[in-house]
């Protein structure tokens, strides 16, 4: 007998309410009543022999930055919670999920304004990593990763501007997907960077990520067709992305790569990465955009912000408009250059992050926080800048801490990347 949506929901609610668990820090708003009603409607449809599709009745969380009609959108911030006005409508992506029958159980914790890869939040508490509760969850979609990893939902919906679905997925041992930016409408999602923001799922399998992605992208949610690894050309990225791998990530990544021997594997050095370096030297793209979004708030409510977030926002104040404009133009050329790389490869392979999740004590000092945050974001942010699609798959060496193997696919080839990722997921789990 198949378990009902209501049964799954009650199990998830019990996980969230468990005083020994991370529910209180992972889930900032719990929609117990509306979720029960949605689950019951889904079960009634199933009994009647109808369904809204494969997401019908699936328990799902959304990140704290998505608009829900009638609620103030906090984006992990107490200042926004106080200053904001209730949203007049659900974000389009939330509406699409509801229309597909998804049961939204909670809004999940996040780095304030989604502006770090660490996942710490001094306002609402930092949820502990499932592998070691003294360690950070990764971010910015911190609560999303914890909720999916700890069974508070089946799928979490996060956002990714520099790695915010993939970093917490890697830290917590689950799958995180970042689509091509324009694949899913970002309206109704509190912005960090107008140019780089994207919306993506986190779950314990590629198949579940693909399911949520299809619904959010407004395309048919069909099962993934298997891809043969032997017919796949993988580019093993060398150079900067392999620097400073810690003593867990290095061996775990090597072992995972060895399991992909069936594919045609070729070492590749990404020449277009120099273009990203040039843009970052002139202030980048996300920092000036984030500063523009929060400039008024910084003038009046800076004291109420997470100090690590405030520092990053303030640091961008002196970036010149001319440099920002040049950076945007350089990005267009960089995207075209990276697109040509995919004439040779079906996917690029690299570690999601060079380090495993640091302990919370290791990021307590602002300088340590900044250094580790940069390391966490280093590889993932490449995908956002070049507008490729990317996915992090969990890799674990014995009992060591989890880390991630990341695949990049050509922009617009999201579905093909997900199909390939399902094959890679199977191979590296063997």
């Amino acid at each position: 007998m198949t378990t009902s949506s209501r049964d799954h929901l009650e199990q998830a609610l019990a996980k969230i309410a468990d005083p020994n668990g991370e529910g209180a820090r992972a889930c900032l708003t719990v929609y117990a009543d509306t979720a029960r009603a949605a689950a019951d409607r889904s079960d009634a449809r199933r009994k009647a022999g109808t369904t809204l599709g494969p997401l019908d009745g699936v328990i799902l969380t959304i990140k704290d930055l998505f608009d829900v009609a009638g609620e103030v959108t906090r984006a992990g911030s107490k200042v926004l919670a106080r200053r904001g006005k209730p949203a007049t409508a659900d974000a389009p992506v939330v509406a699409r999920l509801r229309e597909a029958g998804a049961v939204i159980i909670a809004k999940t914790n996040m780095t304030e304004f989604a502006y770090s890869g660490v996942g710490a939040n001094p306002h609402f508490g930092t949820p502990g990593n499932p592998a070691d509760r003294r360690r950070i969850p990764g971010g910015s979609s911190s609560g999303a990763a914890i909720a999916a990893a700890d069974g508070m939902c089946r799928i979490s919906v996060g956002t990714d501007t520099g790695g915010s679905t993939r970093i917490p997925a890697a830290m917590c041992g689950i799958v995180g997907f970042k689509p091509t930016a324009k694949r899913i409408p970002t309206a109704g999602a509190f912005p960090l960077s107008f140019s780089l923001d994207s919306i993506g799922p986190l779950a314990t399998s590629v198949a579940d990520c693909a399911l949520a992605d299809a619904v959010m992208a407004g395309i048919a949610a069909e099962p993934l067709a298997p891809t043969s690894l032997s017919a796949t050309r993988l580019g093993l990225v060398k150079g900067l992305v392999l620097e400073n791998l810690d003593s867990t990530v290095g061996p775990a990544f090597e072992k995972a790569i060895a399991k992909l021997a069936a594919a045609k594997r070729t070492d590749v050095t990404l020449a277009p990465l120099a273009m990203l370096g040039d843009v970052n030297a002139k202030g980048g793209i996300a920092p000036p955009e984030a500063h523009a979004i929060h400039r008024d708030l910084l003038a009046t409510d800076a004291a109420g912000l997470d100090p690590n977030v405030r520092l990053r926002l303030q640091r961008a104040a002196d970036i010149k408009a001319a440099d920002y404009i040049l950076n945007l133009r350089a990005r267009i050329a960089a995207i075209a250059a990276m697109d040509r790389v995919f004439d040779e490869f079906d996917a690029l392979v690299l570690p999601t992050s060079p380090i495993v999740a640091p302990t919370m004590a290791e990021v307590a000092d602002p300088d340590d926080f900044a250094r580790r945050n940069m390391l966490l974001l280093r590889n993932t942010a490449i995908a956002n800048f070049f507008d490729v699609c990317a996915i992090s798959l969990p890799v674990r060496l014995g009992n060591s801490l989890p880390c991630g193997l990341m695949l990049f696919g050509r922009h617009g080839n999201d579905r093909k990347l997900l199909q390939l990722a399902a094959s890679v997921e199977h191979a590296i789990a063997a």
Partner: protein
Amino acid sequence: MTIAVRLLTVGLGLLLCGCSITDSIFPDPEPERADFQDTVAQIRNIFPNLKLPGNPEISDVHRNRSASLGDWALCLRNDIADKRQYYTMFFRNKKITDYRLSVLSDGCEAEAFAPLPQH
């Protein structure tokens, strides 16, 4: 190595990789006005598969701004503003041979659109 042997080697190389060489030497032809009805018919077949609400609107055919999938492209969207999605259609030999949800470098949001012509 003599010049004759070198030329023979180059010639053999060109012969063996003939397809890609041919593709790069002869650019894909631009779809013309005379091909428009065929293009419209193809879009009428494709649009229902996209399961978009509303009716299709298309841009003019233009040179593909991305590096992949063809030399010529056209943007397609549905006409319901709050449920709008953009797709890029790619041509090979004047036929639509591939399409995808538009990406940034396709530039579809900056295109001018018109309703798909009636039969």
